[in-house]
């Protein structure tokens, strides 16, 4: 049995009714309204993960709940939010919603992804008529569960925090205090709850104001016609993009290192079938559901497919429901990518979405090798930690980005949030002001990018020292091997994490010096006062044969210490003069010839 997910909008072939000039005007107005929501939410929110890390997303939906416009936040949220919207609409008749009603949901098995991401939805009314919806999703710092931030690494969703089924949290502008009270009573960080709610409310109202003004000025009928036309327009661009991909069947695999409960890798198998302007993404052959917390609800798996394809189908098209319309997704019933209650899911948005997207890119590499970019580190390396001293416990979080893969045109970006999100790091000075910790390091990690004609961007090294007793939960992967290269590019080194004490340092996740592998996924890595948590995030995969890289670029990389002199020699075949400041062209040519013979896979 398989589940098939389609996203027809019912709008394809909508005739152009709005004059082209007004159409363009309204298109940018919708974008502006969504961007305005994000600006309000970031600047007025209270928890670190919203204000500093910007782990949230905002969008406008049309009156029939089709995505209309979104702000440039987290793709894994954005492409999943319409599942939440649909789940809310299924419970609350949208025809009967009133102005000022706000609905909320996070239920992983009913439109949500992981517990942490709460989605708020508000109808936007004009003169008694529903013209749109504002939808705002935020990752909340903590909603209870077996470990801080829900990162329990357990075998049951109950350990991941409070499940919120579709609820009405504001009725005609009045808060439902009962819901507030339940949220407040179930969080490790109740101090953020009311403030973050206020920030989401500000964002929703910001969108409402903009859309109502537009309806006032252009009239509701014209506004709604422009919405339909915009969605059809994006579908047109997306279909053109798909038509540019040669018809065919393309397969690839990628792996999560572990579900946290066993040491077995977990497989994503993807088969992409391109036929004209339609695309089917089938996960038949992927592993069955797993015990640990990497199972992915439908909304999350579908979101990963959507955003991964978007990069190569219509990256600059207005982002709306039209981009999903040509895409059909097939999910086996018993599959870790099709989670059912009570499977734990907390790591799905990062570990699982990242691997699904990386597998999609690797399949596309076979279809459009000249256009594809190599996979990224394909994760968020998101951690939540508590630090406890005599004066109490505080909770902090960060996202430890690695690098992006090399592209056909240039090296990959170093230390940039994975395609799945667009979050910001936690500034050291912000973290230290609030918590008894010292940020000791967040810098580029030498030799961490996959070698290639265009190399992968570099990953990072991160260190935090606990001044009290620390407990840390983390989701991560790529700890057995790094980001794969494409077109003959190399794989980047594996990620790993360490506990560094005054006397000894110890690998607590990934490959140790003796070759043994430690399971990194746990909600309870413990740190004594003074001990340091170190994380090494990997870079992106390499693009093309590294022996074809311009030696001058390799020299520059060595001078900037992006690449060590040893790696220049062993990976790129570039030999430098004794002082390390110049190339040795003769020795380089000889070394490259030697390495070329050794390379098992000559360049494509």
């Amino acid at each position, binding site marked *: 049995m398989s589940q098939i997910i389609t996203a027809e909008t019912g709008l394809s072939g909508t005739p152009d009714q709005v004059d*082209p000039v007004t159409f*363009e*005007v309204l298109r940018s107005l919708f974008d502006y309204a969504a961007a305005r929501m994000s600006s309000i939410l970031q600047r007025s929110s209270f928890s670190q993960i919203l204000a500093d890390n910007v782990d949230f997303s905002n969008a406008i939906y049309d009156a029939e709940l089709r995505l209309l416009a979104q702000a440039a936040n987290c793709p894994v949220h954005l492409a999943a939010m319409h599942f939440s919207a649909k789940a809310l609409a299924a419970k609350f008749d949208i025809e009967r919603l009133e102005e000022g009603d706000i609905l909320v949901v996070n239920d992983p098995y009913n439109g949500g992804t992981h517990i942490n991401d709460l989605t708020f939805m508000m109808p936007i009314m004009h003169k008694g008529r529903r013209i749109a919806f504002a939808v705002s999703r935020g990752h909340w710092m903590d909603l209870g569960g077996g470990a801080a931030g829900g990162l329990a690494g357990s075998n049951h969703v109950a350990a991941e925090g409070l499940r919120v089924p579709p609820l009405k949290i504001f009725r005609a502008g009045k808060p439902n205090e009962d819901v507030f009270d339940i949220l407040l009573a179930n969080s490790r960080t109740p101090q953020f709850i009311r403030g973050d709610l206020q920030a989401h409310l500000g964002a929703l*109202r910001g969108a409402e104001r903009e859309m109502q003004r537009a309806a006032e000025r252009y009239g509701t009928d014209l506004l709604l016609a422009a919405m339909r036309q915009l969605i059809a327009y994006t579908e047109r661009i997306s279909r053109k993009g798909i038509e540019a991909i040669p018809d065919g069947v393309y397969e690839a695999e990628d792996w999560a290192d572990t579900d946290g409960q066993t040491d077995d890798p977990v497989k994503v198998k993807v088969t992409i079938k391109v036929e004209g302007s339609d695309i089917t993404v089938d996960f038949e052959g992927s592993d069955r559901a797993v015990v640990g917390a990497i199972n992915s609800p439908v909304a999350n798996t579908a979101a990963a497919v959507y955003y991964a394809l978007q990069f190569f189908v219509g*990256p600059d098209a207005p982002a709306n429901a039209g981009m999903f319309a040509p895409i059909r997704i097939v999910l086996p019933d018993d599959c870790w990518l099709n989670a059912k209650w009570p499977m734990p899911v907390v790591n799905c948005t990062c570990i699982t979405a990242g691997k699904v997207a990386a597998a999609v890119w690797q399949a596309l590499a076979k279809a459009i090798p000249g256009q594809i970019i190599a996979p990224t580190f394909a994760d968020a390396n998101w951690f939540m930690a508590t630090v406890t001293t005599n004066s109490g416990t505080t909770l902090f979080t960060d996202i430890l980005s690695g690098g992006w893969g090399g*592209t056909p045109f240039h090296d990959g970006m170093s230390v*940039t949030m994975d395609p799945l999100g667009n979050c910001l790091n936690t500034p050291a000075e912000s973290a230290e002001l609030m918590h008894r910790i010292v940020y000791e390091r967040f810098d580029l990690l030498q030799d961490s990018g996959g070698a290639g004609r265009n190399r992968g961007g570099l990953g990072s090294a991160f260190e935090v020292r606990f001044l009290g007793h620390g407990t840390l939960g983390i989701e991560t992967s790529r700890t057995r091997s790094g980001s794969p290269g494409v077109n003959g590019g190399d794989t980047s080194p594996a990620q790993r994490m360490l506990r560094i004490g005054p006397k000894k340092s110890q690998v607590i996740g990934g490959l140790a010096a003796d070759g043994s592998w430690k399971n990194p996924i746990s909600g309870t890595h413990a740190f004594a006062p003074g001990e340091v948590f170190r994380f090494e995030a990997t870079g992106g995969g390499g693009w093309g044969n590294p022996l074809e890289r311009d030696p001058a670029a390799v020299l520059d990389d060595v001078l900037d210490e*992006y690449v060590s002199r040893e790696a220049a020699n062993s990976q790129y075949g570039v030999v430098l003069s004794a002082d390390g400041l110049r190339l040795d062209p003769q020795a380089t040519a000889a070394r490259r010839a030697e390495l070329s013979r050794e390379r098992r896979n000559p360049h494509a």
Partner: protein
Amino acid sequence: MWRVGVDVGGTFTDLFAWHEGTGERRTCKVLTTKNDRSEGVLAVIADAGIPLAGMSVLVHGTTTATNALIERSYPEAALVTTEGFRDVLEIGRMHREFLYRPYQTKPSPLIRRRHRFTVDERLSAQGETVRPLDVGAARAVAGRIAATPIRSIAVCFINSYVTSRHERAMCDILQDAMPDADVVCSGDLRPVFREHGRFTTAAIAACLMPVMRDYFDQLERRLADGGFGGRLLILKSNGGMMSARFARHHPEELIESGPAGGVAYAAHLCRSTGFRDILHTDVGGTSFDTSILPGGEPLVTRQYELEWDVPVMVPMLDIRSVGAGGGSVAWVDDGGSLRVGPRSAGSEPGPACYGRGGTEATVTDANLLLGRLHPSLGGKFALDVAAARRAVQTVADAMGMSLLEAAEGIVRIGCETMAHAVKAAISSRGRDPRDFVLASFGGAGPMHACFVAQALSIPRVVVPAYAGVASAFGATAMDIRHDIEAFHYSPVSSADPARIEAILAGLQAEGHARLAADGITPDRMRFIRSAQMRYVGQTYEITVPLPEGGALDAAGLERLGSEFHETHRIEYGVASDDFFPEIVSLGVAAIGVTTRLPDTAAAVVNGDASRGTRPVYFDGHWHDVSVHDGEVMGVGTDLSGPAIIEYAHAIAVMPPGATGRIDRDRNLIVTLA
């Protein structure tokens, strides 16, 4: 003696001057001399017939700093930072500019990694020493830099916003090793928290110091050689001026100072016209700049980014820019939609009608075909109508529109893009555009102003008399201004008013000293005090003015709290007594009031303003439109649209239905239907 404003833009160098004795006014425009911009400054003064020895004040705005940064064309600089934080400039905040674009790169770091050095040292967030500065390592780093030609160095340590004592020790070691070096201490330059913004700002200052010193040296030498004995003042990013001497040490305050002159002109208009809330808009060849002046005061932001993820932590005028101007290119996208900008044909090759090889349709080409621009451009320039027609026809064919439909559509979409920038400037501050009067600056501004206003339902437009040389005019209408701030963290409920007063007094003393050094006497000094505030638990601050007059007391603190709630409501649409306000930092704006242009329009010459009629296309039809010479139009003249008003350096377009009147300062006040 003459008071002279000169603004050096990307394409033109503009001058506005007025004579302190006779009140005579002069304007002039020359092409910017790109290799040595000071040459153009001298040229425009000479062209205006003003003797260098006859100038009492020269106020100068320049894009030299911004250009050097964007092109990374400055001598290589070095960074010395805390071990573990070598790559703050390069990592930035880790986010990307384009959500789904596979081929994107981040801005290249201001200072290359090979020139970024680390030393062991550490301060806590409370300013305590966690690890002292490793002096041996510090000296070794100084030695390594001294062995290179690099002589601009930024010192950026973690938590130096609390105290810069480690940074200062490092600076001393560097200065000992290289007495000729420019060394910038981040905590002293801008004691703001969150390392990325502070480090970047210090790096910018270090990179620009040699560039701006060379530039000002050259300019001062040329001026002195010509007999200039007056004062040279420089426009800065916050909408004020500073002495050239100070500017050499604070080049980070020169970034984006270009549009500051226009904003000063807008503030001048608030005073002279009596309009309270003015919206400033400035249209150039490639970009559209806009800001608001509620109550006649420009807004200042601390969230400016030079490029993606390159923040400049200097109080700057809150000006929004979009890529929309006369040179914006019209194109048809993959989905068959007509788009305008953000790409511009620039000044080379420029719009198709410039006849310099441009083949793409631009907003200027469209205006020409619609008859809004005259092909002879007032006799200055011959525009190529056939080339413009060919270019716009290509777009029209792709869209299945007629030539004129396409031309009118291009102008309208360009104006709508401008309108969105206005909305971003206004509504992110929670205000309504309809409460403002739109003032239009720049050579191409008044041609589009009425359409931008219509898109925003703004009923009234002001075309200022010197719109075409707005920044140069504004430069002569500006005050000296220094924004100084100090970190001070305290919830309002437990704040100590005496402590706050002491900090503010220190800031004010510093401001007093800087103004005195600029030659400002105490009777011309003004001090505006403000606090950066947020709710306890929030991360971002908003600026709240501190009550004026008298020392802060308990009642004043309470007022400050309620003022914060209200400001938060205006900015974000929500506020609540459930949360407690806190202060994060304190600031003083030290203002030196300068001599103003006399209000009387003594130099105005009235004459025969009629230039006949010509056909102009509006709303799908040709209209027979009267054309006027804006330079000699009499005070009190009434106009009715459609009309074209041609000035020496600008052209205004009044659409059908609009009415206008020339006020006593010869600004054109338009009321839209």
